[in-house]
């Protein structure tokens, strides 16, 4: 045997030993044995480093899932019922015990809960509400915060005045009726109308984001960037006290690393596992929790691009995409096919037996030929590489690329990092870009009114595809003005019908938002929302 061959064999044997160790190692993975002593700290593996902990100015769902445990608004959502029991969440009184809306729909009077204190001891009252709302809305107020205002414009756009009626009563006056207002008050994500301690805001100024002080069931303990955000139970909470003493949110951006940390007992619960790991995790005794959060993974059509201006082209694209195949195959049933422009978790979701634009490549080709593109055309699809609610965007875009190639549409995919992508996307779709992907939605039907509103065309709003349809606009305006629920629901159904017919954006799938829990986590409920409540969660 010559020296070279011998050396080669030694290297090969070494590699085999390492690989065998790895294979043997992974096959012995299993759920921790019961009976061990557990700490009373819940560790949650989250998808990315959170944004700032100023809930009014912070962006993204990942951060709001943390802020939601510390902060409360006047109006809340009932997050105790899983999606299977409640398709959309019920609004519930939170820091306001009740509210009254004037007959003309212009004045909202909130009766506040008494005896509530912020974590720093500051009393919660009408002055505190006035202080907080002015921070987001009143440019002349000393506490006005540009970032908080920017992130909550959608909520305060028709607010004309705020009046402190007495210590526990606040009245908000609108310039026009705005039926989604209460539900928007309960929203989080990008900007949330929750109450922060006025004393803390004044004391910490710009640094309030590092000293979050709310009224919620958990209070802030510490934050080590890149490592953890720790919350502890608020023993002076006005409502039902949390079961857990401590919660740690640990950013682990890599999905496979999150799965590993759960298997190795370093976390008790993780968000968004890799789709292909779910079945094995379930077999190994971990608990998979899914829900129907109110967002859609969709493509926005650029109405400035010639082919996309023709509704038949948009319809053809919609019919050329095999949503069932993507949801069941690529995404391994972690999503449902979406054919409508409101998510099922939305109060205005149109549940009907027929499925618009069912997968039919032949019909898609006919529509393209009718529109004057018998040989198809070339276009660009933009997407991100990751992000909350995005699932596996690049693979999904490639799936769409293949589907569209089958009907003659040649798609070039351009990708961006998530936060860069949001910023780029919000500037509006550029010339040459036919479609851009986004994953978004709200539990209020008004969301459809936001993304298609002619007054909110990018870069001054989220209508990034420059959609301008007077018929749709009239329908949205009418729905906003409706002052009773029944009329509003009927009018939103009209808006939805136009959206389905005209396809300003093309819905693809509804994410089931899977979470994986260690078997010792009890009481965790995933409701039809992007965030969850940890009050009733405990560890066995």
């Amino acid at each position: 045997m010559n020296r070279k061959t011998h050396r080669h064999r030694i290297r090969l044997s070494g590699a085999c030993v390492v690989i065998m160790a790895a294979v043997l190692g992974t096959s012995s993975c299993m759920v921790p044995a019961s009976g061990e002593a557990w700490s009373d700290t819940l560790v949650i593996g989250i998808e990315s480093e959170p944004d700032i902990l100023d809930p009014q100015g912070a962006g993204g769902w990942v951060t709001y899932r943390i802020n939601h445990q510390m902060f409360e608004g006047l109006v809340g959502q009932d997050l105790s019922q899983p999606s299977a029991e409640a398709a959309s969440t019920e609004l519930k009184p939170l820091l306001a015990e009740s509210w009254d809306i004037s007959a003309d729909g212009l004045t909202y009077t909130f009766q506040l809960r008494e005896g509530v204190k912020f974590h720093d001891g500051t009393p919660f009252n009408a002055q505190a509400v006035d202080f907080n709302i002015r921070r987001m809305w009143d440019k002349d107020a000393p506490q006005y915060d540009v970032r908080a205002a920017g992130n909550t414009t959608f909520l305060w756009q028709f607010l004309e005045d705020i009046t402190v009626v007495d210590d526990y009563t606040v009245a908000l006056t609108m310039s026009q009726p705005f039926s989604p207002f209460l539900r928007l008050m309960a929203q989080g994500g990008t900007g949330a109308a929750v109450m922060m301690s006025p004393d803390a805001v004044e004391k910490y100024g710009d640094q309030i984001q590092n000293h979050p002080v709310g009224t919620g069931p958990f209070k802030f303990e510490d934050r080590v960037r890149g490592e953890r955000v720790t919350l502890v139970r608020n023993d002076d909470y006005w409502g039902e006290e949390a079961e857990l003493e401590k919660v740690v949110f640990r950013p682990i951006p890599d999905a496979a690393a999150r799965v590993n940390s759960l298997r190795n007992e370093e976390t008790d619960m993780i968000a968004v596992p890799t789709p292909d790991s779910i079945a094995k995790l379930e077999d190994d005794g971990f608990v998979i929790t899914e829900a129907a959060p109110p967002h859609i993974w969709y493509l926005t059509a650029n109405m400035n691009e010639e082919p996309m201006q023709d509704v038949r082209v948009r319809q053809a694209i919609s019919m050329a995409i095999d949503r069932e195949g993507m949801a069941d195959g690529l995404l391994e049933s972690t999503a449902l096919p979406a054919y409508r422009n409101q998510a099922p978790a939305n109060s205005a979701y149109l549940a009907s037996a027929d499925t618009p634009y069912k997968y039919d490549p032949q019909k898609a080709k006919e529509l393209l030929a009718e529109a004057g593109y018998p040989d198809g055309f070339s276009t660009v699809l933009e997407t991100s590489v990751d992000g909350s609610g995005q699932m596996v965007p690049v693979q999904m875009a490639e799936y769409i690329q293949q589907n569209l190639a089958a009907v003659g549409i040649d798609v070039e995919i351009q990708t961006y990092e998530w936060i860069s992508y949001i910023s780029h996307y919000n500037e509006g779709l550029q010339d040459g870009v036919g479609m851009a992907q986004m994953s978004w939605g709200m539990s209020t039907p008004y969301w459809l009114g936001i993304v298609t509103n002619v007054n909110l065309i990018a870069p001054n709003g989220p209508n990034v595809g420059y959609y301008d349809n007077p018929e749709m606009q009239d329908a949205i305006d009418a729905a906003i003005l409706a002052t009773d629920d029944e009329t509003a629901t009927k009018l939103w159904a009209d808006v939805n019908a136009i959206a389905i017919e005209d396809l300003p954006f093309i819905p693809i799938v509804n994410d089931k938002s899977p979470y994986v829990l260690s078997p010792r986590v009890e009481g965790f409920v995933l409701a039809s929302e992007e965030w969850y409540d940890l009050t009733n969660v405990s560890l066995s």
Partner: protein
Amino acid sequence: MTLFSLKRIGSALLVLLGVTLIVFLLLQLVPGDPARAILGQGATDEAVQQLRNELGLNDSLPQQYATYLGGLLTGDFGTSISQGLPVLELLLPKLGNTLILAAAALIIAVVFGVTLGVIAARKQGGIFDRVAMALSLGGASAPVYWAGLLAVAALSLGLGWFPTGGMYNAREPGGFLDLISHLALPAVVAALVPLAVIARLTRAEVIEALSGDYVTVLRASGISERTMLWKHVLRNALPSLIGIIGLQVGYLLGGVIFVEVVFQWPGLGQQLYTAITANDLPIVQAGVLFVAIVFVVINLISDLLTAVLDPRAKAA
């Protein structure tokens, strides 16, 4: 020596200035508007413009660069867009964590690398030499992220000996032993490449030194083989070793960025990765600059040290 040192320091400063310019210019190519990213999509054009003015984003490029350089000189590295904190305050603890990891990796690489190299040279052509060199070739060729994933699969998930990542146990943070258990895997993985390089170079240097006339003289004087090898031969190889170890420190700092991402080590690399995905320009700029400064300073020190130990190096 003084002239050599001054020249060497001068060129190091020039390199750093070049780095600041390249970092500054590269980041102009990143898409998206930082002002809009800060204010959110609902912000008015007026607010965005106001913030662009405040951040100096509407100034000409040379003006922005001059402001940037002026800030650096006064210790102002800017404010993080995503975290809203002074960049220096945010990055210094991360730099500390990275140095812990890099130092642990360096100790492993030097101790094992030099030992392996010397023994391999002593037993040149034997089984130990062949195995050690084959392993070192494997170590030098293995991508660190791949080696990291393999280590996690085998030693964390498989045998349960080590945690899969992070710096402390999130339930009970703190404690030296906790730190060591979290440090072990990433340090070993980060040490693989420098260990291999140091081992191979040490072997070559020692083999060369062993052929020197003074070795024959020393052997003839009856000195023990061990003393001759570890004391005299290794000392002769030291200047070259210091040079290569200095370079490895630089590569280590680059390499630990991948290791930090794989093991979620809260260091500069992990922070840079997060900042890049968050389009947080001030952190990216400062992070790259920190790595460059450490790289240049370590190389400067190793060059000066080599020159002290081996005056011939000054001519090179």
